[in-house]
């Protein structure tokens, strides 16, 4: 067995009011894929920030390659051979691949200050070929897909001599095919004795790729195990400390009359001739591959984009939606797929975020009734069990699951007739996910019509009364509960006929 390349022990770190880490530990061997698991808020990111030198630990020691080290900055980490690939990539998009790979360590002509472009491009091309990338070093980053940008990050890390690469949710925006390529690359890294710390919420991936699993819970080290010794249930159990008998607690709900009816809406080049309906108390799942046009349909329903033609009916009345205000006024709410971009104003308080669409309801003449606002927000945040220090806490300081709950609070305040959820549990830990599923059940029970887009097949199957499958901007098929197998849906999404 390889010896440990990284040993972090007894790492503690406190922030005002919170002990983020309390004796966290990990031991990574060269050439292994080591999954770091834990719910959101378990301290994984703080832990990795300490490894990367972005944060200094209050206590604990780091040993890298058998030597005790102190890491004060990401560049020091890189100097040691520790590279990070973040969930949200930030390449310099207007520079070429070669420029990005050699950023900060450019080849120069002799000892001059002048950059040797030719050499950089030649070296970059060599690397790209090694990694089987079908692009040239001269290409601008802007033209690449997210998966390709990620690959460039990995190439950059490896070519700078990294011996430990931390990947934070690397597959969250990749298609299945891209994931396969990524995993192939990770296997190659292993063969070259590079260690990988792999963070992901997708349990299936962990069993596919990881050799060892370390679990953190509430900032504490829980256990490390060989991946082969674990199964889904036991891993979840380690993470949440309680057994989740049912991840998808679908509630029995009586289904009422039609709430939304969409007739033949089209947005040229995006989606075409989309017709469907949703009834009260019903959860309709939209499944499809990334780029199938599901989110775009919902954006049009909510007035964020315009449909070129077609009709939208709510409760038997034809409505016209030109902007989000129209949709909101007609009882439609949309929880968008990207919390940070379109869901929350991160720099403002939870209260302001929750109240934002409902401010009109809290106004007396032109003025805000802050007491009423506060009371209502408090009520709804309590109902949806948002974990927070208070309504004044900045939304940006919450964990992903709690942020999503704040978005839900915001729309529950409007008591919508139709709730559209676009990837409601993406990037959210297992516990919060179950809570959100349970809330969806409650909403449906209260008579709300719900549309849920999800790219996770188990979620779609577990939650939906009906599943609509989209592909290439068109509806490819519709499945009622109990009338399909997982394979049917996947085949339909991939292009087979129902």
């Amino acid at each position: 067995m390889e010896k440990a390349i990284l040993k972090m022990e007894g790492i503690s770190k406190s922030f005002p009011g919170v002990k983020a880490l309390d004796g966290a530990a990990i031991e990574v061997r060269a050439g292994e894929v080591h999954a770091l698991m834990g719910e959101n808020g378990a301290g994984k990111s703080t832990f990795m920030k300490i490894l990367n030198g972005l944060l200094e630990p209050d206590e604990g020691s780091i040993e890298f390659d058998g030597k005790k080290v102190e890491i004060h900055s990401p560049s020091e980490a890189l100097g040691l051979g520790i590279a990070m690939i973040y969930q949200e990539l930030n390449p310099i998009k207007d520079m070429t691949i070669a420029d990005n790979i050699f950023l900060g360590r450019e080849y120069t002509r002799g000892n001059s200050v002048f950059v040797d472009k030719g050499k950089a491009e030649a070296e970059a091309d060599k690397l790209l070929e090694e990694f089987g990338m079908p692009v040239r070093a001269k290409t601008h980053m802007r033209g690449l897909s997210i998966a390709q940008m990620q690959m460039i990050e990995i190439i950059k890390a490896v070519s700078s001599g990294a011996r430990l690469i931390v990947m934070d949710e690397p597959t969250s925006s990749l298609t299945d095919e891209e994931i396969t390529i990524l995993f192939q690359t990770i296997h190659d890294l292993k063969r070259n004795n590079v260690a990988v710390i792999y963070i992901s919420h997708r349990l299936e991936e962990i069993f596919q790729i990881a050799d060892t699993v370390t679990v953190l819970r509430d900032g504490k080290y829980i256990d490390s195990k060989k991946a082969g010794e674990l199964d889904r249930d036991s891993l979840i159990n380690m993470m949440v400390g309680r057994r989740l008998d049912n991840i998808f607690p679908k509630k029995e709900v009586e289904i009422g009359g039609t709430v939304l009816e969409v007739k033949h809406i089209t947005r040229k080049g995006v989606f075409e001739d989309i017709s469907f309906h949703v009834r009260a108390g019903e959860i309709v799942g939209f499944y499809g591959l990334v780029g199938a046009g599901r989110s775009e349909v919902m954006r049009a329903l909510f007035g964020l984009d315009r449909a070129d033609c077609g009709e939208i009916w709510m409760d038997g009345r034809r409505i016209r939606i030109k902007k989000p205000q129209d949709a909101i006024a007609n009882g439609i709410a949309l929880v968008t797929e990207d919390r940070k971009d379109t869901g929350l104003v991160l720099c403002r308080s939870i209260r302001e975020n929750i109240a934002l669409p409902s401010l009109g309801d809290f106004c007396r003449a032109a003025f805000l009734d802050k007491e009423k606002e506060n009371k209502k927000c408090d009520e709804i945040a309590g109902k949806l069990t948002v974990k927070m220090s208070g309504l004044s806490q900045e939304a940006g300081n919450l964990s992903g699951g709690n942020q999503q709950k704040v978005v839900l609070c915001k729309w529950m305040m409007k008591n919508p007739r139709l709730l559209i959820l676009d990837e409601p549990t993406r990037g959210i830990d297992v516990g919060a996910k179950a809570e959100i599923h349970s809330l969806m059940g409650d909403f449906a029970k209260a008579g709300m019509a719900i549309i849920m887009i999800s790219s996770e097949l188990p979620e779609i199957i577990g939650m939906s009364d009906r599943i609509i499958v989209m592909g290439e901007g068109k509806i490819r098929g519709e499945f009622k509960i109990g009338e399909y197998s997982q394979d049917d849906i996947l085949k339909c999404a991939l292009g087979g006929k129902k």
Partner: protein
Amino acid sequence: MMAFGGNKEGALSGQKNFKQYLRSYALVIIFLGVCAVFAIASPTFLQPTNIVGVFRQIAINGVLALGMTLVIITGGIDLSVGSLMAITGVVSAMILENNPNMLAVALIVGIGAAALMSMWTAVLVAKMRIAAFIASLSTMTIARGVALVVADGIPHTIKDTAYSEIGNGYLWDPAATGGVGFPVLVLILIVVAVITAVILYNTKFGRYIYAVGGNENAAEASGVNVVKVKFWTYVLNGALCGVAGMMLAARITSGQPNAATGYELDAITAVIIGGTSMAGGSGKISGTIIGALIIGVLNNGLVLLGVSSYYQQIIKGIIIAVAVLLDMKTKKGN
């Protein structure tokens, strides 16, 4: 209470520890520190007349900075404020020249003219989505040209004493209270501060200003009419520039087409020192007032100490950087 009640957070979130206190009041501490230095170095600094003088000095910049605060919170900027002030001065002075008894009309039309002119920026930024820096640069040049055309390039003297009282008068006769009066300019500043604070903290529009600046996409997806919010923020700022233009014209008893050049930078400086983020989404009225006060006290104190005006500029520039650095450090804190 209502006016400056935007920061009730403390009361709601329970106790704060010392560091958080420091964070909330870093600006005040910086301000008091600067005052303390001058108070020790110069015996005149703390004299009531001098203190009133400082407030009077900052009144015009303060009003400008308050409007600018709203604009910067939306994530924008307005470089045209000085030119807008000149329009108000010129228009109001010229109306009075021809109609000596129509002070109210002159002021309303003058301020209205600035607000109207600011719609150019408002449309470009809100509707056409041009960067605020560029849009307001365009307005800055156009408005200056308009002021020059309207005034025919020459200053127009204000003979109306009621008008000049706005700039030079006191609420009561200073002689009666041993030389300490309450300048009308300061009263206007206070009124404008209260109005902007109420708008920002106690109205829907104010919340939308923060939301649009904090995350335009999320605001839009929450049903906020982003175009409308931006548009009216710039127009409101234009009207406040008009008020500041009136104050300046009253003070120099003249409507001058070349007045107030470079004022935009002082206003922006006060806002930034006051802790408002240039990225938008955060900022406070109280911060801007303190920011304006810090600049005012620096100007005043350095003159009292007899520092050459050349050095004054250098010192001011350094202190601006230091104040913002300290504020950033305490904000980031942990």
